[in-house]
């Protein structure tokens, strides 16, 4: 399987994880290990950057795992940029998952503010991974201003509804020059496999694992689904056809 590369950094796993909603940091740590994910996103608002000891950060201290701070809580570009700068200082990484959702109910990403913030953060030297709607034009615009990846949603965050935006995801994947990571809404391993079969470069999962009855087992299920989906994509899935292949074709006389 091909390795995923983002800004020169190689990833063996194409499964990224979120760290929220777990019933304990210990369980989160075990789920992350079972998933073999190498990139885990943490909300800046959940971590105590002043404390000597932070439960969440301690649980994620692992040489195989990179932390991807996110700006969840920001309602506009200005707040997101402040958050990114604070995260860079606190976690010693210039990678940032940009989340700007001024709507606290459905957590819908703000396209206008996300574009503004991406442009600004790229200039400030960040590796920016914006969470956005499955909007093909927005994805191209983000690419133009220097986004490292695009992270279009499958359906609303935490909704487990699967790939409701599938037709637009296909267009985004077809057009993109940067890795496409399907973020939000993936509810079952089969959704993740489907996203990978379509050619997504990676998927990001949180709720579906954290809220399942057995998060560690579910993390492993997602690991396998993402692998299998990617393998199928690289193996080239045979085109399906509406027509049956008749064993004695009507046009065979032409070749007699």
């Amino acid at each position, binding site marked *: 399987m091909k390795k995923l590369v983002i800004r020169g950094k190689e990833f063996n796993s194409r499964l990224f994880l979120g760290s*929220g*909603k*777990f*019933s*304990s*940091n210990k369980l989160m740590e075990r789920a992350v290990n079972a998933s073999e994910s190498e990139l885990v996103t943490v909300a*800046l*608002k*959940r*971590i*105590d*950057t002043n404390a000597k000891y932070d439960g969440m950060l301690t649980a994620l201290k692992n040489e195989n795992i990179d932390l991807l701070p996110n700006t969840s*809580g*920001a*309602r506009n570009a*200005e*707040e997101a940029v*402040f*958050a990114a700068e*604070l995260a860079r200082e606190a976690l010693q990484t210039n990678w940032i998952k940009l989340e700007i959702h*001024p*709507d*606290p*109910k459905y957590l819908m990403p703000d396209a206008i503010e996300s574009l503004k913030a991406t442009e600004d953060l790229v200039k400030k030297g960040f590796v920016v991974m914006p969470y956005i709607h499955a909007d093909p034009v927005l994805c191209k615009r983000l690419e133009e201003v220097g986004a490292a990846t695009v992270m279009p949603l499958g359906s609303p965050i*935490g909704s*487990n509804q699967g790939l409701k935006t599938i037709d637009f995801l296909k267009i985004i994947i077809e057009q993109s020059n940067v890795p496409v990571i399907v973020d939000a809404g993936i509810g079952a391993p089969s959704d993740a496999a489907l996203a990978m079969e379509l050619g997504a470069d990676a998927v990001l999962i949180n*709720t579906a694992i*954290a*809220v399942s009855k057995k998060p560690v087992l579910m993390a492993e299920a997602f690991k396998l689904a993402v692998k299998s989906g990617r393998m199928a994509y690289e193996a080239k899935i045979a085109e399906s056809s509406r027509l049956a292949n008749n064993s004695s074709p009507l046009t065979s006389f032409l070749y007699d």
Partner: protein
Amino acid sequence: MTSFKEVFETYRWEQVKEEIYSKRPIDVELALSKNVRDLEDYKALVSPAGSEYLEDMVRLSQQETLRRFGKTIQLFAPMYLSNECQNICTYCGFSLNNKIKRKTLTKNEILKEGECLKDKGFKHILLVTGEANNIVDVDYFISAIKLIRPHFDNISLEVQPLDEVEYRKLISHGIHSVLVYQETYNETDYKKHHPKGKKSNFYYRLDTPDRLGRAGIHKIGLGVLIGLEDWRVDSFFVALHLEYLERTYWKTKFTISFPRLRPFSGGLPPKVEMNERELVQQIAAYRLFNNEVELSLSTRETQHFRNHAFKLGVTSMSAGSKTNPGGYAVEKQSLEQFEISDERGTSEISQLLINNGYEPVWKDWDKVFDDAYKS
């Protein structure tokens, strides 16, 4: 400019009451089978008919809460700054006509109390006062916020209703949420319970969430004081208010509390009793009506009730609360606003959550997102 008053005035208390009480089992079943529920469904869920479906309601409520919030409960502590009050509220220990020792914390005392709460692990704090505009005014709040802010990540306020410009000022100093409970949406009853003081103005209070929304607050707290009026009808108006506010102030979050009247020195007994079974129905009904709203469980409730009820739909809890100014460190013996019921300390509550497979969340906000950070 829109206001909730316009929506509110299209409803009549008696009619809503009749509609709730005439809901049948089939209405409840229909409400339960839906994914998205409306105000008619809400009436069915809080109705007497709904109480027959309590187990089903609670099961769904728990599921919805887990999906949205995970196995986590946010912990916060109230800090009472002052028990001075110029209102007469028939049910409240701070009421003007109650002969109690009045106290307003000084700067030093605020710091002392803050230190004590910080040591217990709190990062989210709720500042509470009575309503005495000549003593605890916006300037007093601002000076308190300035003292507290370096030590806490998230500051909420539960004080008298203020004007929009005053809210803007407080937000610019780092206030995250403001809680203003309507007490009751029954206007006649409201006037009976609040005969004197600024609080007797029903519509000024009703308009408060609108003023907060226009000021651009992050979170607004709603609720009624259960026991003043029929809780089924009163809570319908909370749901109505929530629905209006969510549509109007789409960037604001909401949280609901459901305090039941508690005894205090010299107070009246509740007019309408709500039992624990009904309180559970109330929690589940709010959750099934709105998947995203935060629900807060008070230390007014008993230890036994809180041990179980926190898993059914709520998202935040207070722990080890003191409802008297200075109660944590400065003046432990002074008179409380109401008697709390669950007297367990912070570490006990935190352990309770952990033992039940829940993560206690102490920090879910960062100052970087406050307006005060930008200035």
